[in-house]
């Protein structure tokens, strides 16, 4: 029974690479070190998957040979005048490289899922830069960890334990014991509240006292702050939770920036937060030795979008005049960072790259897929390891499914249900090896731990075959002409 160690988990952008997997008869039977999400994927991935290529005929998806599916896809793509190639965050860099070549060959628009997660972060970085680092720096040095609009407890479950507050660093100790104390106190308080409610005493369930920051924040040890529009699970374990009104993050960040510069503010409260609290928070940030601000899609998707990030970055930049401060986006899919990285080295641009004129062009809002779909401009699509039908706004999906859709995915999704050609692929990081980039741009190898079912090719192989077939069709057309 082989135990495979140092496996990189192909789920979220934390890309934990210390997973141990027990394999029996080409089956994953036990998973060690992974979080709930990782374990769930390793154990259940094979239970519900596509095994045969499908082609839509007379309105129904029917099984087809791989050859037929490749030919059909190549015909659709070679014929298309403005195809989109979307997804790429749940596959390997090796597959993305081929995807970019295919996009160039067919004069398409290639976009990855960062367009609907951290695209705004990219836009703001392009405006003002950012001060960042790899996660190990935070592990060893950070004495102030802020999560803003991100909920690692649910989306990146091992982030805190591996990289931030609960990890043991060279210059900073773990604070997990404080968390335990904190959590039990919190639970006790909740129990009390529930009891009060049962005895039908009406009590507004305020959990944090309004006035000032808790004294722990002024300690020299590591501390953790969560800022969000609602009390997330991550907030429960933080030393301090700052709740801001929805869609007001921009104002709070701007106010903090002014306070960091020691400017006066003409208001008493900003987004429901007293200015004194913000002043204290600014002092905590200036006073730390090494601070880090992790932000999530809570900032990129809410009102202000790229400008929320813009001003957060500028705040961190300004803090570097006084101390060391770092900012990092919490990237979602396991290789969304890689999709940006590969796209950038090949084309100069991290996402929303339009090859229709034979060279890369970039202007999110114009060359990004949601916009192209909403305007009804594309005439075909290739979706790789993504599910836009489930996650795009309705108007975009309507236009997506109106035109031919080719999907490469190991499992059935709403998008495969609406597709015209479906390729069952192998699971990257389980059945196929490759490279992925962690949220801090550290490249890590993905392992092949079991054999894929017969007939399930890797994303890369499928793309290579489509590309070869497209070139063949082009040659054929040229000869006829």
């Amino acid at each position, binding site marked *: 029974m082989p135990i495979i160690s140092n496996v990189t988990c192909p789920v979220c952008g934390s890309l934990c690479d210390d997973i141990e997997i027990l394999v029996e008869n080409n089956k994953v039977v036990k998973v060690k070190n992974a979080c709930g999400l990782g374990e769930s994927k390793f154990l259940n991935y094979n239970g519900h998957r596509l095994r045969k290529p499908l082609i839509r005929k007379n309105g129904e998806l029917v099984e087809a040979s791989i050859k037929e599916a490749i030919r059909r896809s190549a015909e659709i793509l070679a014929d298309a005048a403005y195809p989109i190639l979307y997804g790429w965050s749940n596959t390997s860099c090796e597959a993305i490289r081929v995807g970019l070549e295919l996009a160039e060959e067919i004069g398409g628009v290639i976009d990855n899922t960062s367009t609907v997660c951290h*695209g705004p972060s990219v836009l703001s970085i392009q405006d003002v830069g950012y001060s960042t680092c790899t996660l190990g720096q935070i592990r060893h040095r950070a004495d102030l960890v802020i999560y803003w609009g991100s909920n690692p407890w649910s989306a990146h479950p091992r982030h805190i334990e591996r990289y931030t507050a609960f990890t043991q660093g060279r210059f900073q100790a773990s604070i997990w014991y404080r968390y335990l104390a904190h959590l039990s106190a919190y639970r006790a308080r909740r129990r009390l509240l529930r009891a009060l409610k049962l005895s039908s005493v009406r009590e507004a369930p305020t959990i944090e006292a309004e006035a000032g920051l808790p004294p722990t924040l002024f300690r020299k040890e590591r501390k953790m702050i969560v800022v969000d529009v609602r009390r997330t699970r991550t907030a429960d374990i933080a030393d301090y939770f700052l709740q801001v009104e929805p*869609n007001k993050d921009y104002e709070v960040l701007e106010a903090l920036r002014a306070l960091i510069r020691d400017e006066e503010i003409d208001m008493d409260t900003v987004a429901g937060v007293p200015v004194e609290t913000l002043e204290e928070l600014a002092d905590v940030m200036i006073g730390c030795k090494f601070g880090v601000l992790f932000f999530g899609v809570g900032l990129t998707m809410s009102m202000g979008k790229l400008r929320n990030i813009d001003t957060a970055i500028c705040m961190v930049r300004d803090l570097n005049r006084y101390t060391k401060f770092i900012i990092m986006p919490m990237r979602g899919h396991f290789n969304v960072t890689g999709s940006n990285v590969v796209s950038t080295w090949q084309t100069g641009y991290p996402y929303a790259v339009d090859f229709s004129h034979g060279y890369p062009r970039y202007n999110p*809002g114009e060359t990004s897929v949601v916009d192209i779909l909403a305007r009804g401009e594309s005439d075909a699509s290739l979706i790789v390891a993504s599910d836009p039908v489930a996650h*795009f706004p309705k108007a975009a999906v309507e236009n997506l499914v109106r035109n031919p859709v080719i999907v490469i995915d190991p499992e059935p999704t709403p998008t495969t249900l*609406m597709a015209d050609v479906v390729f069952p692929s192998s699971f990257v990081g389980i059945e196929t090896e490759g490279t992925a980039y962690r949220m801090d741009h550290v490249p890590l190898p993905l392992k092949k731990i079991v054999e894929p079912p017969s007939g399930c090719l890797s994303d890369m192989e499928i793309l290579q075959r489509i590309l070869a077939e497209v070139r063949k069709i082009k040659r054929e057309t040229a000869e006829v002409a």
Partner: protein
Amino acid sequence: MKVTLLTGRTLRQGQGKEYGKLSERYLKSVAVCEMDPDDMKRLGIRENENVKIATNYGSVVVKAVKSLRAPHPSAVFVPYGPWISLVMSSKTHGTGMPSLKGVTAEVNPAPTEPVLSLPELLKRHFKKE
């Protein structure tokens, strides 16, 4: 009732996804609306009753559940998924990013309307030629 609609990932949605997007478990993890218990009281709905979420761009029926993250008065939380996407605007204001959090919406009880299964949902809303 007028609310601010928040969306995001949840641990359950993340796990549900791994059981397959056509699974019952996935539906149960994403076709829900986490509400402030006080708001639920105000609307007269109980746990697991259906509510209709409507915006300028569409409407969808999901199950209301009590939020464990309360208080967040007049803000509701729905995990990412095909249900909530139906009420989202595709406008990106030139950024490529549609507004997926902090959208103004209307939430009301929908005792007579069912929560559609995934195939039904797709069939109802999207046409394939």
